[in-house]
């Protein structure tokens, strides 16, 4: 069960109640620490490259080509999964589906732990998920699994993830992919 994150073993914890808040502009969050964006990107890449069954969970904001930025981001996420040797499981519909959810095919924010348990995922990136749903899913994941969660967010980030990168658009994703390639080379992966 949960053994990572600032709220530790609390059932359905909330990081704000432990005094952890989303990072200020230009910064990122690693557990309770506010760090430089590049530092966080390196750590995120290291965790993804060294964790069992690392998976990217893309949400509706990057699954559908509803604007040019979404299309560009989606292409970069595909490249990111290749660099990180990560699987992809989409979060394309927010409606509760239990017990019919097929955890092999999708993750649902209302019972994300099922997907993570089922696939034995130890590190996960949430990207393009609407913030409310990301926040709920991240709380449940942190409470019920030992998965290291990473939020790559276009807005102000998510303190309930173990690592948060905020204001992430295609320019920042390109930067992250470049850093991930460097980390991958350093790790000899």
């Amino acid at each position: 069960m949960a053994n990572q994150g600032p709220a530790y073993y609390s059932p359905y914890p909330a990081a704000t109640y432990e005094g952890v808040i989303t990072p200020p502009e230009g910064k990122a969050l690693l557990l309770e620490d506010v760090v430089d964006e590049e530092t966080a990107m390196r750590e995120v890449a290291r965790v993804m490259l060294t964790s069992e069954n690392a998976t990217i969970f893309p949400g509706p904001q990057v699954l559908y080509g509803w604007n040019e930025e979404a299309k560009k981001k989606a292409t970069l996420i595909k490249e990111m999964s290749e660099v990180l040797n990560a699987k992809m499981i989409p979060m394309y519909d927010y409606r509760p589906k239990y017990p019919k959810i097929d955890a092999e095919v999708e993750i649902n924010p209302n019972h994300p732990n099922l997907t993570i348990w089922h696939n034995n995922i130890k590190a996960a990136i949430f990207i393009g998920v609407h913030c409310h749903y990301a926040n709920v899913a991240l709380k449940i994941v942190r409470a019920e699994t030992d998965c290291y969660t990473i939020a790559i967010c276009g807005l102000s980030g998510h303190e309930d993830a173990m690592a948060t990168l905020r204001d992430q658009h295609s320019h920042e994703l390109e930067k992250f992919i470049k850093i991930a390639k460097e980390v991958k080379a350093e790790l000899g992966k």
Partner: protein
Amino acid sequence: MSKITDMTKTHNWSGQKLVSIDHMLFEAPRTKHFMTGSEVLKEAVKRATVDASVSYPITPQSEAAHLIGELWAEGYVGVYFRGENEFGVMSEVAGCSMAGARTITTTSGPGTLRAMENFAQWSGTRAPMQLVLMARGINSPLTIQPDNLEVQYLLETGCMIWYAENVQELFDMSLAAFTVAEQPDVHVPIITAVDGFFVSHTREAVELPDDDIALQPYDPYAAPLPPIDSEMPPGRFLRDPFVMKSNYISYATHASWQWEIRSAVERSKRYARHLLNGLVHITGNEDAEIAFVTCGTASNQAKEGQRELEKLGIKSKVIKLRTIRPFPEEELIEALEGVKYVFVPEFNVVGWLANEVKAKLYGKVDVNIHAGPRVAGGMSLPAEAIIQEVMEVVNPGKGA
């Protein structure tokens, strides 16, 4: 008739130049006016690029609601209509807000309680609408006096609650409120409260920026929920309630959702600190051993008491809380450094603010918290009553 025209990148539908909240609150030149709280709320809404407002009459907010309707006729508000009752109003406000409209409404007293279920629904759907509450008594025998007991009922609805002391704060707060409520990492409804009559019907000097500027419109596409369309009802969960699925989903989702709403309210602090120039405001003697912790017009009366005590050679200070949800715990603890006695003057019978202060400070500060003085039923709270209570507690047996 409304003279609504197309919105552009630089101007809204009524031709006002769009500006940032910082420009509106801190940079735009201001001129002095003499207005009631109802009139000043009209001035705030006029500068807020409001898409929708729904109203229902109840004293003392009826005039404010009426004046927002005037703004619709003048072309400053997109949609305005009267609901069938307060429950209907708050439901319709929710619909407007979830559809992506910047929405405001007003109510008072019993209307608040009639609509009560909606406030928890508002926060649950995370729609950033604003209620301006002009507080009044709620109980039988019927009263229209400015008691603020109804705020106690709102404390745990998940909405943010700010409290304005006077017409100037009402103007500034109601503009800042939209901005903070609409931040993507906050995105919860906000209640801007004032004490009815004392603020709504009192004419005071107020500094206002010109009315040819207005806030940038609300952008529902920056919202942390998917925007409404025919395939996607607001929040999605409204169509497919978790409780219908299984106890497990209901437990997991509601538990984490409730924590998340309260987390969102906590996240609002950084924005509120900036736009309200601090979550608390302190007047009086910095090194005082006596402090009044207040909100709303009780702050004004406490300041009067503070000045009278100073004449008697007794140092005191007033710590005014501008926000109740989020509760400014850190700021209050810091302001209480060196304080031995805390008094919480209130305009209600239960002392809800004193209860809040005690709960938040329990085990964190070594201070004697005195839950009073307080009045009820709309009675005024004269400085003499405050001084008498202080003297009886601080100086027992020796009188005021």
